[in-house]
């Protein structure tokens, strides 16, 4: 396909407000009010509901022509009031859209007025985030919202300046509820069950147990008091290294909370780095249980090394996840011939290159940031991978080129269980390795089965020695 300069065909990214919603959904008792036209919130609800298979409520200020001409103040205030009276949230995240930004609403001033006019609003924390859809992507929307939330609560004076000796763990990219549960399990036993503050925590809100009741706001999320207490922590860990985690930068700069930045714990090396960092911070040994898990992971790696070595793989999706999976594929001898994070970040290339350089790779690695799927399609053709790892939007390429796709990340709209995909820590890495290997084995089975059938049909003499189905070859 010829070079395109003016159009995006099959986008890999979503707009900033989407990221903001994902961050707020990880905060206790919070609702999002999207300042824009009715469609934005509905589309994002659809997108999220499809992926997490949960009801997702996002309110909208439903701006109409009138609002666009005379300003959205009236709608914003009414929206806040209605959300308060119907949902009784403790937090309302007001996130803007392209419409609100372009008509030039001064959201800060409107909120100020609202607080003065409404007595009831005193108990509600209203946090505004500027997330114009024409800037950057959902990935930055997430970081912006996390920063806004942390700034708001640490500055609010809810919490006194008393050292709490806890550890902050702040996400730099939205991850699956299952991964959050796993990281919290690791933190519970390596740091102590009550000695860490995890933000934002969507493990319950995006994957709520069935109770037979429709909750207005699903229980769970990082407690507000804990967020306020983040400034009193002993240290912070930012999960994700491709973009600046402004929330922990801020805590470090303003409250002297020393910050460590580690990659998402995907793969052996990055999981090691996470646990070693925890051990360094707490000054304690990594518990025996995790050493056993690590041992089991390495055992699994040994079991599959022949299948994985030299397997050409294309990895795409959000940058932190892609970096982690790149590391995982490298340490298992795979050839990551194409690595394509959904958006451009300050440090992806540098970290990825550093990781690649340490390997004695016998292939070229193409690193392309911020492509659309059409361009990615061309890149796949050129790189000729045997397997794709990424979200479900790669299904068209997978189907057309008949390359197996292992679904991870966001969004996954055509398979179940997206919220329960585990890829972090030793256990998560093990599950990834099993899935990758089984995908390869299945593909080989099919390939050999087809060859066998074809030979049978053509009735080629002497083919019987080759015609044993796939399984026999793979031991």
């Amino acid at each position, binding site marked *: 396909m010829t070079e395109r300069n003016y159009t995006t065909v099959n986008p890999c990214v979503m707009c900033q407000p989407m990221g903001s919603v994902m961050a707020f959904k990880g905060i206790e008792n919070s609702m999002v009010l999207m300042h824009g036209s009715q469609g934005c919130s509905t589309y994002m609800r659809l997108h999220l*509901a499809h992926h997490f298979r949960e009801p997702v409520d996002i309110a909208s200020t439903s701006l109409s022509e009138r609002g666009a001409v005379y300003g959205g103040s009236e709608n914003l205030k009414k929206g806040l009031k209605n959300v308060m009276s119907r949902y009784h949230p403790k937090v309302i995240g007001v996130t803007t859209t392209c419409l609100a930004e372009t008509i030039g609403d001064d959201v800060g001033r409107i909120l100020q007025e609202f607080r003065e006019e409404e007595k009831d609003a005193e108990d509600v924390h209203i946090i505004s985030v500027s997330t114009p859809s024409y800037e950057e992507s959902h990935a930055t929307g997430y970081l912006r919202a996390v920063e806004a939330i942390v700034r708001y609560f640490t500055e609010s004076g809810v919490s006194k300046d008393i050292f709490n000796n806890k550890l902050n763990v702040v996400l730099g990219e939205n991850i699956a509820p299952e991964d959050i549960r796993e990281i919290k399990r690791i933190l519970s036993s390596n740091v102590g069950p009550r000695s860490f503050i995890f933000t934002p925590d969507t493990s319950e809100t995006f994957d709520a147990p069935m109770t037979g009741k429709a909750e207005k706001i699903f229980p769970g999320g990082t407690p507000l008091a804990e967020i306020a207490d983040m400034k009193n922590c002993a240290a912070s860990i930012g999960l994700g290294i491709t973009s600046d985690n402004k929330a922990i930068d801020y805590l470090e700069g303003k409250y002297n909370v020393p910050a460590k930045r580690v990659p998402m714990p995907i793969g052996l090396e990055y999981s090691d780095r996470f646990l070693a960092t925890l051990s360094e911070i707490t000054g304690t040994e990594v518990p025996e249980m995790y050493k056993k898990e690590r041992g089991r992971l390495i055992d699994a790696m040994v079991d599959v090394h022949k299948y994985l070595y030299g397997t050409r793989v294309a990895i795409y999706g959000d940058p932190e996840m892609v970096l982690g999976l790149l590391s995982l594929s490298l340490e298992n001898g795979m050839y990551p011939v194409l690595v394509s994070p959904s958006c451009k970040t300050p440090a992806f290339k540098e970290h990825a290159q550093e990781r690649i350089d340490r390997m004695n790779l016998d292939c070229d690695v193409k690193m392309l940031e911020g492509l659309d799927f059409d361009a990615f399609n061309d890149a796949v053709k050129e790189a000729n991978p045997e397997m794709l790892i990424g979200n479900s939007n790669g299904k068209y390429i997978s189907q057309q080129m008949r390359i197996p796709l292992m679904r991870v990340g966001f969004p996954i709209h055509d398979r179940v269980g997206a919220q329960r995909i585990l890829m972090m820590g030793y256990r998560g890495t093990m599950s990834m390795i099993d899935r990758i290997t089984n995908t390869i084995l299945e593909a080989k089975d099919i390939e050999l089965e087809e060859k066998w059938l074809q030979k049978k049909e053509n009735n080629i003499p002497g083919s019987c020695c080759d015609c044993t189905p796939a399984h026999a070859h793979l031991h």
Partner: protein
Amino acid sequence: MPEITNVVNTLEERKPYIALKQKVKGETFLACDNTSIAGAMSQRACVYSGARVALNPVTDAVHLVHGPIGCASYTWDIRGSKSSGKETYRTSFSTDMKEIDVVFGGEKKLAKAIDELVELYKPPVVFVYSTCIVGIIGDDLEAVCKDASERNGIPVIPVKSEGFKGTKSDGYKAACEALKVLIGTKEGDIKSPYRINLIGEFNVAGDVWLVKPLFEEMGIQVVTSLTGDSTTESISQCHIAQLNLVQCTGSMTTLAKWMKEEYGIPFKKISYFGIEDLSIALRETAAFFDSEEMKQKAEEIIARETAKIMPEIQRIRSRLEGKRAAIYMGGAAKALTLIKGFRELGMEVVIIGTQTGKRDDYLQISYEVKDGTVIVDDANPLELAELLVKQNADLMVAGVKERFLAYKVGVAFCDFNHDRVVEFEGFEGFLNFAREMDSSINSPVWKATKSNISDSINANNISSKACKSENIPVTRIDNIHEDAAITRGMEA
């Protein structure tokens, strides 16, 4: 005046939009057809979404979204309509407007984008959708499209769908306006003395392919279906039809009315869902052409196809008798035809609502449903959840957003929107629908949602008799707390 009831707990301002049908009060007038209330959590989308769902199924067109990336991202191939030919419509095209375009205007980028896509994809038509931001910065879409049209020698049609300029219904109108530009631009290929268009039919899951053959068997040429499985070519010549059958009246009546004025083609409102409505559609069409042969053929088809599915329908019906359904649809036409469909399966409707129904629609709905049914316009999740419980519904028919809401309150669900993968129209389609009702409502999973751990011991059934509590010697595990403490200690 609407009957103000306290059917459900909601905002004061929302109350006129919800009513309970009662015998003595006469006609039920519902507030409707307004923009949604800020913060009320409407299930509706925007003008752009209306235009997009109505127009997107045109299979060989390039559907270019002029706006920031999100609008294209969230609507990439979500329609669920099938194509028997080209698949261009399943590709998402966007001008991906950035801040610089917002400041300096996006016209130049748009013009170049169109040229680029025409060169790469060689489409017979380009639809250019405007989004919120275009309406604010004031890009002259019409002028850009007109120039691009002349430059490239194909129709480049603006779809005026700025998200904030009205409701989803206005988006439908914008889509119809765009279609008008195409209609009548080609001479028609007349193959039969009897010709119709299937308007407001989107070929979700391949519905059209179960309906079109029925008309063809009656000797009728189906010129196009709008817009499901349609092509630029078939739309351009659809003015040769003598009759328009309009199914999704909410989205496409505007177009049918225009074709009546412009080309003198009358239209009929019909539905291909359910045995009764489908039979009416076939009979009325035959009656319109006033051909005895065709009328006979229609009866033959109805008798033959009904006989084919009836034994199975009856078997399923016995499993569904008396079950209570909730309907929440985008448009009123589908809601109305669903009432009949449920009746044919022995089910009753206890909640019915739409996103875009008009006054007349609600009036007709109120004639069709029985007393005690709740009728609601532009409902929100909290209202729906409460209604499902209060009205004791067994199943809800709606779209994706409502699915998980229904599940959370333990109510079965059926998607009648973009997400379904089996046909519901035509005779076979109705059987599919009946089967889905059975598998949704009668799944044992709804027992699990209401169960507790202790039920397995208390349940008075044969399998648990053996381990009834009195048979088990009462033991107490004294060291259990101690064990737990040790485990915790190990983990810590």
